[in-house]
Structures are given as C-alpha cells and as structure tokens.
C-alpha cells in the first residue's frame, strides 16, 4: 500500500518515477495558455444570460469600434459561411453561435477577437443583444409534457423527445419479476455534474494564408478525432489540418468534444489572418462544456426469499440538454449503461432509456464515467443495498452470495456482455478483510446504542473499458481502433508514437515501460510521442479508460513486431536460423550457446548497417500496428466506505475508504494507485457535494467554484488500497485499464455508507449536510432543482 517510486528504473513493469515529472515540477510544462504564437490575437465569447430566448437583434458596432478589436463574429457571420451549426457526436447539430434562439444559459452568441485578453473581455460589454425571453424546460421529468415549450424548433420538432432505446429481454425480465419472492424498487437521480479539470478548455487556431494549412493547438483528449471533425465541419482538407495537444491539465472527459469556441477560433484566424487564442474562463467551463450524468432512473430488483438475485428492470429518463451532444459509440445512445446487471449472476435484465431535450448545456458523457457505467454501477449498487435493507440482509453478504463465480468466466451477462475474467469473491473478501468489516459492524452497533451515527457502505463494480471492437463501436463512423508506431534508432534508443493523449495519466512513462518490457531495454531509452496529428498514427484518443486496453495493446504488439524483426537481424548477425534464437530480456541468444548473443542495441545498429540481411528483409527495426480490440476488458473492484454523521447537523465525515481494485496486470503500480486515489476523490465529490442544479428560469446554479464544489484534502480520507490481479485473457499484456474504475465504483460506496448511518432507504446525491438532515426528516430534496 505504500506508494513510491522504485529506487532504480525497472526494465519493464514496476513502479518508477514518472518521466513527465521533470518538467511539471519546475513549472516547465507547456499547457495551452502557455503557448504564444507570433502575432497571436485573443478571443472572448459573449454568452446568453437566458436559458431560452429568441434573438431579436445583435448590434456589434460599438465593439467593432473598440481600438483593440480586430473582428467580431456573430451567428450571422457564420451562417454566411455555412458554419452557424456543427454536427455533434450524437447525430444532432449544435449552434456554433446562436442565430435564431438561445437554448441554454451560457450559450455562445458572439465571438470577439482583440489584441489582448483584457480588451477582448471589455468589448463583450459593448455588444448589444436584444432577447425575447421564452419559458424554459428545466425539469427533465416535465420535458415531455404536452404543454412543454419546444426547444428544437430548428429541427421542426413538435416535442422535446430525442430517442427511446432499450436493451435486454423485456419479456424474460417480466417473467422473472412475476415469479420473484421479493422485489425492491427505487427512484434514483444521478445528478448532472461536471468533470471540471483544473485547466479549462481552449484552443489556438492558426491558418497559414500562404500554405492553406490550419494548425490547431488545443486541449484535446482525442487529437485525431478532432482533426477529422474539423475537416468535416469546416471543409478544410484533412491533410491540411494539424491538431496539436500540448500538456493537458486534466481532462476527465471534458476535453473530448469540439466546442463552439474552437470553431470560432478557426474562423477568427481565417478572418484576421493571424493566430487566435481562445481559452474559456471557469464559468464558461462549468456552464457550456460537457456535463456528465443527469440520469433519472427507476430501478427494480427481484430476488428469491433466500437472497438469490434474479433480475433487474430499469427505466431511465436521460436529460441531454439543448443539443444532443453526448460523446459515446454511435450505436449506443445510452453508452454502455446496459452493463447495469453489474457483478451479479442474474437471469434477466432489461432497461429502456428515453432521451429528452432541456434548456441546459449539451454534453452528457464526461467525467470519467466509462460511457455511463458510473450511472449503471450506481443503480445496481444502490438497488442491492435497498433490497438488503428492506429484507434485513447484510449488504456485503448479499453481494458475496450473488457475485459471478470465478469458474463462470468468460461470463455472458443477461444483457449480452462477455466479461473476460475476474475473481469477484476474492476481491470482495480482500476488501472486507482489509476494512475489518465484522469489527466495523460491531462498532456501529455500539455507537448506535449511544445515539452516534456511523455508516458502512459497500460497493462492487464491474467496469467495461477499452472501447472498442470496431464492428460494434465507432464514433461518427470512425472505428475505435488505435495505431502505434515504434522506431528503434541505430543506437538502440526508441521512439513510440501513439494516437492516445495523456492528460496526467503518465503515458510517457507507462507506455515506455510496455516497450521496455517487450524489448528488454530501459524505459528511459524510449521516447513517447503523442498529441501531434502530424507526428502520430490515427486513433480515437484517451477517454473511457481505453488507453491501456487499446493503445497499450497496440504498443505491446508493435514492440513484438520489432522484436521479431530484430530476431531476423540477429540471426544474420549470429549466422543461425531465427528459430534457433531465444529472446532473453534485452538480447537474442543462440539456443544452447548463450555466449553467442546480440543485445537490442547491437541488433539495432546492425539493422541500420551494411550487414547483409536475408532476401526480402528490409532492414531497420521500425514497425507499425493497428489494434482492433476483440472485446472490452472488464476491471472490477470492491470498495468499503466508513462514515460518521453528525445527527444534529447532517454533516458527513468520511473516516475510512478501502479500495481493492483488480485491473489485471499493473504496468506501473505507483501510477495505478495514483489513478485510483484520484477517482476515489471524485466519488467523495459526487456523493457529497458536486451537482449542477438549475432554477425554474434555467439559471445555472453552479457557475463558479464558489457554487460548484470540488473536494479538498480535508474531505478526503487517507485511502487504503488493496489489489487482486486477474489478467485479461485477450489483452496482449493482460492489462485491463484503471483510469475510471474508482470514479465509477466509489460514489455508491459513499452513498450506501451515509444512508446506512442515518437508516434511510434512499436520498439522492449530493448528500450535503442539508440533504442528509432532510433525508433524516423523511423529506429529501430534489438535487437537480433550486432549493426552496
């Protein structure tokens, strides 16, 4: 459980200090706003103060007259270029700058380009916009009311319905429920939240008027996808677009999509002939870029009277905001939500999801959710607790009794997923032992007798990451396979080029370790190149915990290709058949004569030398690979949270948090644990404080960090980690991915603990002191609306 780097650099897997730290520790990172291009201008966006209003007029004359203003772009300007609307990642369109109506508070209305950022901001105050306010759709549960205002009249819609979607076998599920001894049901809201990385989103567009090449430096988790989308949106030939992601100050899904400001920056650069930088401020980040969750769920769980779980049935109302812009595999409008049968051996399950428009910001899949698995895990892990409470069963025992057993893997779920591997009972047992579960229950009983409120919450999650198999998953028609290129220089030093993009996960280190493991060289001798589309192969980027499962696999395979090329070169060097050579970390040895051998560096030099190679062998040691995953990987984990609740005030103190993760093989355990720590803090945030609520007029009530609260060091306990290791059978190195596991798994553990403490069946997150107190009074609050 002690996290620290190894004293020496491993030749492969193992804890080691991160290579990227050197620059970050010195303030020498290069983030988007640190970049200054020659002649660069600065932009600012005028946004709608209304959630829903018709635009009567926009007068930019005073702003244009400002001595430092170079250009003012409006929806009308863009309409003239055919750019007023852009496609979303979910087959909808989104306004770049509003032309007809504004549809959420904070929507983009005008774009000012000026000599400096202060002047750009000043000029916003000089633009006169006349609005005709309209009634807003705020409460998603009323979005489909017959008299609800219609938001998308631009699409000639007559209501706010987006889609209906279902998964599972409805008839089989109904059948299971009809025969069940006990059924528990519950309404659960997973409130709208925001990934809120510490660095906001931004972009610098630079159109070279001579070459016609567009260079976009931008905070993107998916540089290649961005390049293709720019080509599709703006009609610029794709080979004339270079997207460069610099160091990124956290992403968590917030930096997957293309935002109107990015498109405006491109137009601004074309109009002015100079580079244009646009960086959103914090309010803009919270009000207009991709939110997360916002699922209103009605769940039911069926069981026998001896505690065997039988089935789960779910109805979801999904609030997608004013434009349907969720970022997920195209065929899956609810993402991977249909893994909601979780970690249990169920006979049947079914869900139906209805998506609706509201007058809120678009987005929808963000904040480390693994394409809505956060919502799915929260649903099942709350339902199990509700059932246990109703029946007087111990929630840990109920889980243990129903977990999928190790011998059932590969396990096909009632919803059609094929879980690759796991030893769930062992993982749960490890967590309960680490927590001292029985002792905690004894302590709880003693405290309860004294009127003290202590709660113990358990959650078990199965993640599904590494999207994904090309035949099942694409985004905007782009299959979700990742490329990798590995070049070994004559002196044996290597450069690995990847399509995925680190936002703090430590790719420069861990991907070098994968190459090191495969080739037996030092990770220090492997340079990892990411982020620049002119320098890296195509792939869909880093989100959904997909980097290790997809790009990591590509890296291992491309290194193996290099290794096999090296074998041929070594066979020429040592004058033996390739099959007579044995790879021993870092060298090829002649079988039976280990003294006759060649190191990777010697082989690399020989590969570039005058050495005569067999017929048809090209020389050099470079290789490329595209990895199309055969299946997702399925990390799992068991979490135990212990809380104390102040009965007089409702304040929650998270006393302990035990997390046992199984993410398969760990490349760099130190980095893995760091990823888990961060996700656990997200769980504290979501369960206790983070939510975006809206008042009846659609005003955003979380538009700054004064109102949208993120956990600090004082709310987080000292995390207690454990592990089990079940390699993925289909991943080249057995790794499963871990980036979002803790974000997915921790919220229900915290919520279950708090509700266990106060003896309440259910109350929605965030469990603020007010919400806990109200729940104790039997009158919990609606956490998506303004508190009255």
């Amino acid at each position, binding site marked *: 459980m002690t996290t620290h780097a190894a004293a020496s650099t491993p030749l492969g897997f193992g804890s080691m200090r991160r290579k990227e730290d050197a620059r970050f520790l010195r303030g020498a*990172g290069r983030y988007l706003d640190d970049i200054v291009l020659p002649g660069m201008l600065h932009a600012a966006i005028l946004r709608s103060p209304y959630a829903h209003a018709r635009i009567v007029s926009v007068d930019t004359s005073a702003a244009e007259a400002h001595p430092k203003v170079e250009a003012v772009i409006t929806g009308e300007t863009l309409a003239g270029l055919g750019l007023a609307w852009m496609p979303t990642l979910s087959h909808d369109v989104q306004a770049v700058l509003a032309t007809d109506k504004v549809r959420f508070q904070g929507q983009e209305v005008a774009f000012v380009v000026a000599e400096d950022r202060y002047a750009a901001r000043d000029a916003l105050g000089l633009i006169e916009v006349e609005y005709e306010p309209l009634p807003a759709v705020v409460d998603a549960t009323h979005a489909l009311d017959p008299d609800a205002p219609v938001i998308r009249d631009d699409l000639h819609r007559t209501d706010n319905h987006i889609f209906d979607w279902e998964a599972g076998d409805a008839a089989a599920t109904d059948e299971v429920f009809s025969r069940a001894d006990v059924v528990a049901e519950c309404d659960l809201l997973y409130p709208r939240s925001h990934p*809120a990385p*510490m660095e906001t989103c931004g972009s610098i567009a630079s159109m070279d008027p001579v070459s016609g090449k567009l260079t976009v430096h931008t905070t993107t988790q998916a540089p290649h996808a961005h390049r293709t989308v720019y080509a599709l949106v703006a009609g610029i030939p794709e080979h004339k677009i270079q997207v460069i992601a610099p160091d990124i100050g956290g992403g968590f899904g917030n930096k997957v999509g293309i935002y109107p400001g990015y498109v405006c920056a491109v137009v601004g650069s074309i109009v002015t002939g100079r580079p244009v930088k646009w960086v959103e401020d914090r309010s803009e980040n919270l009000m207009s870029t991709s939110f997360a969750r916002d699922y209103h769920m009605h769940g039911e769980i069926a069981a026998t009277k001896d505690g065997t779980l039988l089935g789960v049935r779910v109805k979801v109302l999904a609030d997608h905001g004013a434009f349907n812009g969720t970022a997920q595999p195209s065929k899956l409008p609810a993402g991977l939500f249909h893994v909601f049968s979780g970690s249990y051996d169920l006979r049947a399950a079914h869900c139906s999801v209805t998506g609706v428009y509201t007058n809120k910001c678009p987005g929808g899949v963000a904040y480390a959710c693994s394409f809505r698995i956060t919502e799915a895990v929260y649903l099942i892990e709350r339902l199990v607790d509700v059932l246990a409470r109703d029946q007087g069963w111990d929630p840990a025992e109920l889980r243990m009794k129903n977990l999928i057993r190790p011998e059932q893997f590969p396990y096909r779920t009632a919803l059609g997923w094929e879980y690759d591997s796991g030893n769930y009972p062992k993982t749960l047992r490890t967590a309960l032992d680490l927590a001292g579960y029985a002792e905690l229950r004894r302590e709880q009983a003693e405290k309860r007798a004294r009127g003290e409120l202590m709660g113990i919450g358990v959650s078990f999650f199965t993640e599904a990451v590494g999207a994904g198999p090309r035949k099942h998953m694409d985004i905007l028609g782009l299959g979700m396979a990742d490329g990798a290129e590995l070049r070994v220089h004559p002196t044996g030093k290597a450069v690995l080029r990847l399509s995925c993009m680190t936002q703090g996960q430590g790719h420069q280190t861990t991907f070098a370790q994968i190459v090191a493991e495969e080739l037996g060289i030092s990770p220090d001798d492997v340079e990892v190149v990411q982020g620049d589309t002119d320098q890296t192969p195509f792939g869909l980027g880093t989100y959904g915990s997909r980097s290790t499962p997809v790009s990591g696999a590509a890296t291992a395979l491309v290194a193996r290709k290099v290794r096999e090329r090296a074998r041929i070169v070594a066979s020429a060097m040592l004058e033996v058949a390739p099959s007579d050579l044995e790879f021993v970390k870092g060298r090829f040895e002649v079988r039976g004569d280990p003294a006759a051998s060649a190191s990777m560096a010697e082989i690399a030099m020989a590969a570039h030398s005058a050495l005569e190679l067999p017929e048809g062998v090209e020389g050099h040691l470079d290789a490329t690979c595209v990895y199309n995953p055969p299946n997702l990987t399925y990390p799992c984990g068991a979490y135990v949270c212990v809380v104390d609740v102040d009965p007089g005030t409702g304040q929650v103190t998270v006393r302990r948090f035990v997390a046992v993760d199984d993410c398969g093989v760990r490349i760099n355990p130190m980095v893995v644990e760091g990823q888990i720590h961060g996700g656990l803090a997200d769980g504290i945030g979501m369960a206790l404080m983070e939510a975006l609520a809206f008042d009846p007029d659609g005003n955003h009530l979380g538009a700054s960090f004064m109102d949208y609260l993120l956990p600090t060091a004082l709310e987080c306990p000292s995390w207690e980690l454990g592990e089990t290791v079940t390699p993925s059978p289909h991943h080249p190195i057995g790794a499963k991915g871990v980036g979002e596991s803790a974000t997915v798994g921790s919220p229900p553990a915290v919520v279950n603990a708090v509700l266990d403490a106060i003896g309440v069946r259910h109350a929605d997150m965030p469990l603020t002191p007010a919400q806990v107190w109200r729940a104790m009074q039997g009158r919990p609050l609606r956490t998506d609306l303004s508190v009255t």
Partner: protein
Amino acid sequence: MQITVTVNGVEYTRDVEPRLLLVHFLRDELGLTGTHWGCDTSNCGVCVVLLDGLPAKSCTVLAVMADGHEVRTVEGLAGADGLDPVQQAFSDMHGLQCGFCTPGMLLTSRALLDRNPDPSPAEIREAISGQVCRCTGYENIVRAVRAAADRAAEAGTAAGTVTS
C-alpha cells in the same frame, strides 16, 4: 503605472495597467508560465505563489499591489544544487499527475515546511485545503510533504531554507 517586483530574487520593473492581475504579470509580462490559473473566484488555488514568503492566490492580487514586494514562483524553487526537497518528494511519492495544480501545491508545501518542519498529515491537509487537485485525491501530496520533512530531518537540517 510603473512597478518594481522582485520575482525569484530578480527585480523586474514594468509599466502596467492597474487592473493587471499578478498571475498575468508573471505569465504574460515575465514569461513565467509555471504559475497557472484555474478559476476566477480565488477558490481553486492553482495560481498560488509566495508573496513575501506567504502563499497567495495570484489571480486575486493586482500586480500593482506587489509593487515593492517579493514573489517566489515555482521557477524559483530549484536551487543551483538541484531540486528543492519538496519537488523531489513530489516525484518520489507520485504527488502529481497532470501537473496543473502542482506549482501551487509545491509552494504551499515549501511555505508550510519553512514554518513547521514536522507537520502532521492533518496539518498538511489543512495547509493545502485552499487548493484543489483533481487528479491525486491528495494522499500522495500529503505523503510527499511528509517525505520531504523526513528527509530534511534525516539530513539534520531544518526542512526549510528560510528563517526570519
């Protein structure tokens, strides 16, 4: 107006607008981009620098208010003999991921150890509670600061360099 600010021991004289924020003075006027910004309301603390030795949120200080004062930024942490012990400990204990909040965390940690060479984990958490990290869950930051304190104690020196 003309101001003179000592940053990392070097005096800089510049003509600035009164409204220029200290964070922009450092970043845009002096090119010291190690100091980041993350919010507008002095809540997140990624912009923390040391102003006359004390942590301050540079997004909420006007550059003109720093006239005649001393500022220390992350660029001024490492000395001629290498990284500050706090910097080294952050790497050893994996106290940083995306690196965005790191400069502010390092400076607050440095200031804490200067004042209290042997802080408890609770004192460390309190000291950094005005600064948000979205990546680390704070645990490894706490361990890093403790490690820096331990190492300084082992070395037989006060963890700090500044005494007054």
